[in-house]
């Protein structure tokens, strides 16, 4: 069948500048570029290009630019280019269209409608360069009250506090499974988490024993496929996360494409080489809140109640009620993943249409737990396309304890959000398990980039807090008076619990 799909991008090459060094040919994993000996020129197969920018960055003479194909179908506000292309693709393949990364539609971002407060005259702002700013965060269940025993001049804490995670900055690395990303990426995240005093989440592909040394900074995930879950894995992690759902694909399971299931992934996940790693939609031992409690208790029993257990859900319509159930089921941490949350592979129709923006979910869950008097029982970690330190501050002001970043972390180490993670051919060496491509990520360099990002964002968070006249992040948590809305409806403001600007 002849394909009616035009190329999405056109590769423009300045042949005057091109030195025929072949770097673009070597770097592109989609075989976009090729050398024509007769013409002594390099040409491109535009159809293969994903606009990942790898060749552009590595071209020594800046000879390449990638442009969106200027050729489009007749303009139509309803029948957009994307809609027409999707139908043609499905008519040619009969398949569910896959996508990588998070929802790329513009209509979900509330962060851009929220502005932050600052001190002026009536209370002084604080200079973070001069004064200590506290951004350390503890995640885990907090007691209802504390009991002390006083002995002469000594005070002893009598309350047994549940196990906590201590974060030096309220930013953690979101679940990225070994298999979706390479071992080098896992190592980069692990090293950066250890260096910054925070945590990385293993995702559901297990933790390679080479990285057990970073276990104190690992949140080990237990998901529906139960890949790589065994006693030592549970023991080595600092916390355990039960993954119920993911913002990019709420309600559906995950299929790690067989292209990525290499020998080592097969060993880790205990599935045949080259099969799709199938994570069923539900965990088949969890069909209710009571069942969830059972798994939480089983994991705690298996690890001697030594570490917090987190439950991750996608932000959906009834998140607040579900979160209440999760807390009552005994979770120490709730992880909420919004509609813009990333993924290695998800059906595009799910990614772009299912779930709610994280901003509303944070506000709704935080408020619900406060109303029910159980907010202290669990920490709230939020995720879903967080792009800047400002969004972290806004998330914390809405009620989050900390955030997970996934896409932002990958962007820091090279990702350009080309959304083709499911091919296993990531030219940046990130979303791949190909041993040769994986070497494009050097954990030493990549972890440095991640450390730099966290350092920069932490500085910015302190700067913003100082401007507000706040010197401890605890004072910002759920402090919605530091937020004002621009261009949101009254209903939206009510749900977010924020006033309009000027109010």
């Amino acid at each position, binding site marked *: 069948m002849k394909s009616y799909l035009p190329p999405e991008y056109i590769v423009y090459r300045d042949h005057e500048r091109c030195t025929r060094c072949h770097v673009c040919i070597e770097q592109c994993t989609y075989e976009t570029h090729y050398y024509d000996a007769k013409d002594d020129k390099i040409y491109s197969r535009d159809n293969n290009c994903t606009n990942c920018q790898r060749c552009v960055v590595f071209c020594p003479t800046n000879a390449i630019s990638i442009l969106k194909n200027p050729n489009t179908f007749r303009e139509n506000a309803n029948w957009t280019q994307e809609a027409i292309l999707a139908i043609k693709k499905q008519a040619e393949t009969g398949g569910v269209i896959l996508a990588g990364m998070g929802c790329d539609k513009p209509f979900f971002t509330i962060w851009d409608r929220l502005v932050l407060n600052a001190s002026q005259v009536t209370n002084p702002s604080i200079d973070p360069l001069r004064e200590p700013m506290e951004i350390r965060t503890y995640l885990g269940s907090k007691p209802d009250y504390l009991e002390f025993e006083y002995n002469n001049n000594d005070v002893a804490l009598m309350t047994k506090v549940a196990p906590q995670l201590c974060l030096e900055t309220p930013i953690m690395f979101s679940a990225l499974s070994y298999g979706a990303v390479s071992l080098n990426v896992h190592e980069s995240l692990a090293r950066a988490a250890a260096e910054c005093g925070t945590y990385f989440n293993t995702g559901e592909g297990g933790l390679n024993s080479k990285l057990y040394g970073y276990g104190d900074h690992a949140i080990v995930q237990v998901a529906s496929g139960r890949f790589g879950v065994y006693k030592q894995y549970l023991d080595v992690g600092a916390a355990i996360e039960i993954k119920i759902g993911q913002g990019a694909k709420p309600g559906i399971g995950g299929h790690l494409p067989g292209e990525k299931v290499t020998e080592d992934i097969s060993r880790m996940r205990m599935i045949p080489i080259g099969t799709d790693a*199938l994570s069923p939609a539900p965990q088949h031992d969890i069909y209710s809140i009571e069942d969830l409690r059972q798994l939480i208790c089983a994991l705690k029993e298996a690890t001697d109640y030594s570490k917090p257990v987190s439950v991750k859900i996608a932000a959906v319509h009834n998140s607040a009620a579900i979160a209440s159930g999760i807390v009552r089921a005994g979770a120490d941490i709730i992880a909420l993943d919004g509609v813009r949350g990333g993924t290695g592979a998800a059906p595009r129709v799910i990614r772009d249409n299912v779930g709610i923006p994280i901003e509303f979910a944070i506000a709704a869950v935080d408020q619900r737990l406060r109303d029910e008097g159980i907010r202290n029982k669990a920490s709230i970690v939020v995720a879903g396309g967080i792009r800047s330190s400002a969004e972290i501050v806004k998330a914390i002001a809405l009620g989050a304890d900390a955030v997970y970043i996934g896409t932002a972390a990958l962007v820091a180490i090279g990702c350009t959000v080309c959304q083709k993670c499911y091919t296993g051919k990531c030219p940046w060496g990130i979303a791949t398990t190909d041993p040769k491509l994986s070497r494009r990520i050097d954990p030493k360099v990549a972890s440095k980039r991640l450390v730099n990002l966290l350092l920069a964002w932490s500085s910015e968070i302190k700067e913003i807090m100082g401007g507000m006249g706040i010197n401890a992040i605890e004072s910002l948590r759920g402090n919605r008076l530091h937020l004002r809305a621009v261009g949101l409806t009254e209903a939206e403001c009510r749900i977010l619990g924020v006033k309009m600007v000027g109010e």
Partner: protein
Amino acid sequence: MGYAEELVADIGQKFLSRVMPKGSVYSVEASGLHYRDLNTLLRALGNNGAKKIEVHNIYGQRYIGTGFDQKIIVELFGTPGNDLGAFMSGPKIFVHGNAQDCCGNTMDGGLIVVHGHVGDIAGYSMRDGKLFVRDDVGYRAGIHMKEYRDKQPALVVGGTAGDFLGEYMAGGVILVLGLNSENEKFRARYVGTGMHGGIIFVRGEMSNLVSGVKALEANEEDMKFVEGLVREFCFYFGLDVDDALDGKFIKITPVNLRPYGNLYAY
């Protein structure tokens, strides 16, 4: 220090009266004991050199042996609750009674032998070890069992199994003998849906077969393997091997390593 002093150090005085030593075998009275205390007690006994522990009057305590990696033999008398032996890798657990849901959940080694029925979700995501059930298992048994090289879990069911047996199975072996339902077809639906590894053996005829799996009569080599499992099964339950091997065995395997490979447009 004698066993009693060490136990007191580990579990406290209040549980000591529940333990009766008989050489290297210990007898534990479990009625009214919370699962946390029971597991603490079992661990402490294991750490103190117990080879075999008999636990009497089990009334639904959950998580017994969950996460255990000690090489101990545990004989349970009564009805253990959900998640028996979850995540465990070491013990051999013998249940004299029925077991409930999630028995052998994500089990990583060791042995569970149940002299009775088992509820739903038996052997979910088993990675290694063996689970023998004398009678029936409920729905969703053996979902997403796995294997890698010498780690090959086995679930052997003497009676019959409910729907969704071996769904998403990626490895290991499930054997359903149908001993309590002679001349009846195996009626479970959705057996092996999404299967992409492993083998399901069924003695006798099957009523339903999903697309994506193929059912062939077991050949000689298969039967050698089946016989090994059947012999072990009959040994535990004092049954006749020839009776259990009588009749034909169907071998269910995936048609294709990527059952959903064509589902997507890249």
